[in-house]
């Protein structure tokens, strides 16, 4: 074997290479996102995913080998979900003041997200596994991945659908709600957090601070509600 081949066989068998590649790809994605003035179309995660997918294809690496390295990043999703408690608790006073609208809009938004997604995909011929994969797509990624796993879906595909959902929400929310003429920033932010999780929340913070706070509340509450709702609504389509 040549030196280059020896080095490659070492790298291919250790987590170092793909752990580093994951961080570097995200760094590149984040730089491009800022260059695009935080336009939601230039989502840093989507850019990183595309860069890494091309790199895996070019080097003939399969997903399992990639994940051996990337699992250290993936593992942190659990602790990060637990940490969502910090902003949620910090905003408890705001939640209490708008408790009734929050509770009703949470159920309405969350149910609409799960039910309409499943109804459309079912009508267009999606099979049971795909429906289970799709059901939690409005919940924040770590939670959606967990729900997808427990419903018998494909968690990695769920992760991509979650990303796309967030991007769709972030791109369309402002022009759409302006067209409808909704002016309550609490309502706009909250609904965005419920339907489009963290990516929608990041977008809400760019537009208005109150919207951002209510979006994080919506995201946190919907993480809990989707875990209950997704299995129930999925039953309707089996």
């Amino acid at each position, binding site marked *: 074997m040549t030196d280059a081949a020896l080095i490659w066989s070492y790298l291919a068998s250790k987590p170092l290479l793909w752990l580093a590649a994951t961080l570097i790809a995200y760094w590149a994605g984040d730089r491009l996102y800022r260059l695009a003035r935080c336009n939601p179309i230039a989502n840093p995660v989507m850019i990183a995913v595309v860069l890494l997918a091309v790199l895996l294809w070019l080097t003939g690496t399969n997903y399992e080998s990639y994940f051996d390295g990337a699992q250290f990043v993936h593992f942190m999703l659990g602790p990060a979900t637990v940490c969502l408690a910090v902003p949620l608790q910090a905003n408890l006073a705001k939640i209490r003041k708008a408790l009734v609208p929050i509770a009703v809009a949470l159920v309405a938004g969350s149910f609409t997200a799960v039910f309409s997604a499943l109804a459309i995909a079912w009508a267009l011929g999606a099979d049971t596994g795909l429906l289970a994969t799709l059901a939690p797509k409005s919940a924040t990624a770590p939670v959606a991945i967990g729900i997808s796993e427990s419903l018998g879906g494909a968690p990695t595909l769920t992760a991509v659908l979650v990303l796309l959902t967030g991007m*769709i929400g972030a791109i369309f929310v402002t022009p759409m709600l302006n067209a409808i003429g909704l002016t309550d920033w609490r309502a706009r932010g909250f609904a965005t957090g*419920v339907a489009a999780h963290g990516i929608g929340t990041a977008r809400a913070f760019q537009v208005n601070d109150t919207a951002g706070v209510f979006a994080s509340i919506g995201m946190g509450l919907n993480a809990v509600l989707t875990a209950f709702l997704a299995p129930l609504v999925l039953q309707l389509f089996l």
Partner: protein
Amino acid sequence: MVPALSIILIFQLVGEVISRALHLPLPGPVLGMVGLVVALQVIPPLGAIIRPAAQGLLANLALLFVPAGVGVVAHLPTIAAHGLALAVSLVVSTLLAITVGALTFTWVARLVGSNPDD
């Protein structure tokens, strides 16, 4: 750093154990999150210990989705076969959910007199 991470992992661990022991639909980390909200309310000093680590982790939350997102390479045939169903479903349901949620919030807030300026 170590106390903060220990506390966060303890809540995740307890959440995971409860979720599995009682066969709950809630993933362990979500139960851990609910538990931590309660704990932060009851024991305020806990906030000062975990806040820096929590904020650091949440500031880079997007990075953590990348490994799962790359999993799309293993699902390209599914996406090719059901691309239209997935695309229509995602776009329509997301926009519908935002509209329904925002309209409901505004309508109920007016009904119960919850003012945006409070």
